[in-house]
């Protein structure tokens, strides 16, 4: 059922979110806010070494400290087979996950957990940690991705042999796999080209930077039930992962989602829950674990640092004839960098005949990388969009015109193979070109950069319940943590379908025992997929309401229509009955068959690909190298903006993160392999005074697969800012900047060279 030609009352408006008042008054409960009777504090001892064998761990002294109630080491974690296993959103190697949460025989990065204690207070727990004696045999380490690929690099895992190369390697390697995709023959394309750009680029790992550190409370009940309260991007993900790692049945684990203080992909995995569960089981008391910011930086997130090479050739008319990219992504301590989506998205905005991307997933002695908003795409996009910009310069073309000349549209074969369905990339380019900001004259030391970006958006599994109360109010249960206002957009869609007032619709995020399975809040899927489930559940309710009205009037159900919250006879022929409201029908539901509850459980198909185009204006201080972002304009095809305020918010937030990635953020390691900037002071995320207002333009090219046309919006906006910002800086200083971040020292040294 589509709603395109209906007049929409709620969808597309700016409603106040249902959980809003709790959040502005401090009442909302986030991961660290729960306090249970008898609760202990859990803390983790972490490796100071980037790479070492654990020779022995002696916990006797710590155990003897008064107030210490339990101690856990890797020996307490069940052995996991090393194999990819289905787990919610995708395949996970539980051996790696287990070893990352608690090292078994080897530590692989500064911050790798080696033991944990539960004690009656923070002070006692900290003292206990200092009493645990770990004997390490320190091994040589490797931090840099290209160093790690060398044949003589210290090997992290002697079980990893590079996949995807011929002949099959006989020696273990830090290169986990090589992927290649594309079609045509780029070399033939360069032959035809008048201009060929080829350059190397690097980006540094950056952290998702959610302000709420990871936190979990676990109570192992005497009934052998593992009760978890935690902030995550998916209570079902936490359930699956925790149960797997501890060899439990899923129904034994019940996860209640706390409010989540930001995730951006970084909370689509777990770090604390199994450890807290073991501590609780041993101590027979609830245990709360909250990470410090230092721990968050050293041992969670970040996304991959990269080394990349891009080559693009075009004829004078601006037509791209050939393109290729080689992408080397740091996975961190265990396999799993997002290099494959990097390869898939790199050239996605362009219609190409000859394209090839090659990617390498490489382990290094750094924390295991985690998903970060459009995983893998921003770095590859930075490299490609920089090369496209340089191409425009060489050709003397406007960078938007060059993109228009080569833009992907419906039917274009994407670089990863299939042909795009309906997409709105060209619309974003046109809107960007028409934006007044694009024509504001620039002064000295100022530059303007343009870049585009793509993300697939995903569907996947969602369950939803819509319960009608006797007075006609409606309760919706979703299974996705609300990370950025999704309760509002979901309730608005339910209100729209039911034809009731938005304020009559209450929505909760259910725990794993009270709502059916849902994949994580991620991949820009909630408003699309869970929205679809809620729409279907609401339509299920509408169908029941029509049936109840038909029963009441003693006419056929086909003779009843549902309009604006009322059952009405379909036509005069059906009879002359006073319309029945949802409240009228609900009040009498008992006599027409019992409670009215709608349900849907779906695997949402038809996620609509998303594109965005950004314009960044900067001014560079030639003396200090400091970059001021003067203006920023983000244009994006949202399909349909259910709540435009939160769509704009996603775009603005993505831009801020992307600008931080481009200008300042980076992980800095010393020679000793230790992280030197594990805090917000030295890991410099953008603050309010670093940014201007971020202008947004929402383009709406509806996704035909969604009843309201939704595509999903959360990820696209972090893809273009790296390229847009770097292009702007390059123009401002007249030098092509290829290595992020463009921090003041980097700019000063470029200017001096």
């Amino acid at each position: 059922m589509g709603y395109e030609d209906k007049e929409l009352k709620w969808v597309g408006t700016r409603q106040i979110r249902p959980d809003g008042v709790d959040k502005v008054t401090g009442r909302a409960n986030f991961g660290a806010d729960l306090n249970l009777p008898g609760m202990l504090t859990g803390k983790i001892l972490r490796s100071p070494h980037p790479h070492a064998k654990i020779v022995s761990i002696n916990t006797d002294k710590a155990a003897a400290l008064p107030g210490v109630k339990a101690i856990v080491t890797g020996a307490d974690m069940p052995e996991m087979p090393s194999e990819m296993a289905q787990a919610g959103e995708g395949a996970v190697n539980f051996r790696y996950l287990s070893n990352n949460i608690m090292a078994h025989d080897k530590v692989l990065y500064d911050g790798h957990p080696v033991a944990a204690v539960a004690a009656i207070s923070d002070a006692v727990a900290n003292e206990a940690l200092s009493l645990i004696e770990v004997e390490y045999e320190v091994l040589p380490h490797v931090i840099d991705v290209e160093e790690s690929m060398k044949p003589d690099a210290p090997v992290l895992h002697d079980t990893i042999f590079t996949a995807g190369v011929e002949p099959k390697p006989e020696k273990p390697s830090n290169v986990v796999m090589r992927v290649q995709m594309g079609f045509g023959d780029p070399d033939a394309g360069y032959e035809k080209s008048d201009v060929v750009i080829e350059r190397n680029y690097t980006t540094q790992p950056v952290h998702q930077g959610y302000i709420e550190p990871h936190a979990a409370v676990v109570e192992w009940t005497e009934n052998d039930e593992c009760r978890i309260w935690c902030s995550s991007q998916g209570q079902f993900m936490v359930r699956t992962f925790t149960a797997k790692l501890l060899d439990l049945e899923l129904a034994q684990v019940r996860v209640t989602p706390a409010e989540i203080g930001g995730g951006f992909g970084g909370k689509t995995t777990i770090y604390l829950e199994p450890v807290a569960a073991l501590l609780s089981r041993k101590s027979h008391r609830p245990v709360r674990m909250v990470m410090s910011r230092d721990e968050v930086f050293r041992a969670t997130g970040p996304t991959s640092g990269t080394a990349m090479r891009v080559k693009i050739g075009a004829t004078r008319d601006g037509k791209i004839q050939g393109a290729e990219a080689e992408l080397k992504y740091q996975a961190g301590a265990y396999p799993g960098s997002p290099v494959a989506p990097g390869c898939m998205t790199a050239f996605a905005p362009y219609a190409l005949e000859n394209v090839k991307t090659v990617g390498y997933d490489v382990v290094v002695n750094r924390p295991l990388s985690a998903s970060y908003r459009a995983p893998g795409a921003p770095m590859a996009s930075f490299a490609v969009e920089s090369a496209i910009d340089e191409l425009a310069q060489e050709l003397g073309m406007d960078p938007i015109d060059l993109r228009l000349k080569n833009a992907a549209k419906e039917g274009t074969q994407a670089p990863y193979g299939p042909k795009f369905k309906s997409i709105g990339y060209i619309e974003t380019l046109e809107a960007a070109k028409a934006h007044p900001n694009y024509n504001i004259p620039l002064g000295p030391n100022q530059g303007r950069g343009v870049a585009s970006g793509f993300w697939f958006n995903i569907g996947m599994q969602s369950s939803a319940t819509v319960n009608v109360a006797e007075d006609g109010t409606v309760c919706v249960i979703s299974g996705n943590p609300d990370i950025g206002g999704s309760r509002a957009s979901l309730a608005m869609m339910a209100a729209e379908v039911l034809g009731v007032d938005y304020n009559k619709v209450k929505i909760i995020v259910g725990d794993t025992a009270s709502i059916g399975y849902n994949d994580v809040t991620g991949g820009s899927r909630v408003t699309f997929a869970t929205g679809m489930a809620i729409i279907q559940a609401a339509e299920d309710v509408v169908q029941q309401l029509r049936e109840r009205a038909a029963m009441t009037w003693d006419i056929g159900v086909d003779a009843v229509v549902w309009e604006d919250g009322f059952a009405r006879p379909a036509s005069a022929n059906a009879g002359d009955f006073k319309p029945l409201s949802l409240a009228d029908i609900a009040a009498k539901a008992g006599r027409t068959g019992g409670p009215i509850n709608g349900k849907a459980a779906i695997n949402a198909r038809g996620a609509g690909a998303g594109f965005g185009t950004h314009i960044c204006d900067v001014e560079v201080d030639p003396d200090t190298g400091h970059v001021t972002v003067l203006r920023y304009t983000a244009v994006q095809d949202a399909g349909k903006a259910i709540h435009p305020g939160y769509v704009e918010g996603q775009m603005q937030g993505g831009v801020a993160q992307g600008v931080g990635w481009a200008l300042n953020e980076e992980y800095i390691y010393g020679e000793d392999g230790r992280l030197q900037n594990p805090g917000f002071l030295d890991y410099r995320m953008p603050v309010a005074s670093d940014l201007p207002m971020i202008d947004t333009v929402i383009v709406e090219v509806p996704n035909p697969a969604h009843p309201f046309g939704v595509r999903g919006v959360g990820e696209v906006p972090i893809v273009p800012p790296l390229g847009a910002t770097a292009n702007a800086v390059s123009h401002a200083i007249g030098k092509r900047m290829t290595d992020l971040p463009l921090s003041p020292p980097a700019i000063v040294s470029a200017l001096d060279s």
Partner: protein
Amino acid sequence: MAKFHVTATVNGEEVEYLCDPQQTMLDVLRDELNLTGTKEGCSSGDCGACSVILDGRLVCSCLALGAELDGAKIETIEGMAEGDELHPLQQKFLEEAALQCGFCTPGFLVAAKNLLERNPDPTETEVRYWLAGNLCRCTGYDKIIRSVLDVAAEMRGS
């Protein structure tokens, strides 16, 4: 370890608590007084999630010691609304979608309220610099800054 006995005024009410010498004001608010609206993002003074007003001054509660608060007057996010009446900043944040995850929100609201009490007519730049000690990773600050400027204008008008 001997505990300190402290008497202070929090959101207009007198409170008494015992605390360890190393407990911060943030620990005391959250763990001893159960005022969990004040958030911990870093405990090093770098994120502003723990912002409170101490004797009229905006401070990071993670940087003050609980034991030093005898006789102090503290205002937290929990005291910002007057009964059922939200503070205009709270209302505006809701209307303008100035929060996404909402974790930074208490800190921003407390800091912004303090700004408007000192400077009812701030420029955009002044708002941005005043709030530069509060990190938000979700919003890109745009809607937060607009909300504060709008409320300042409305409060001046009324």
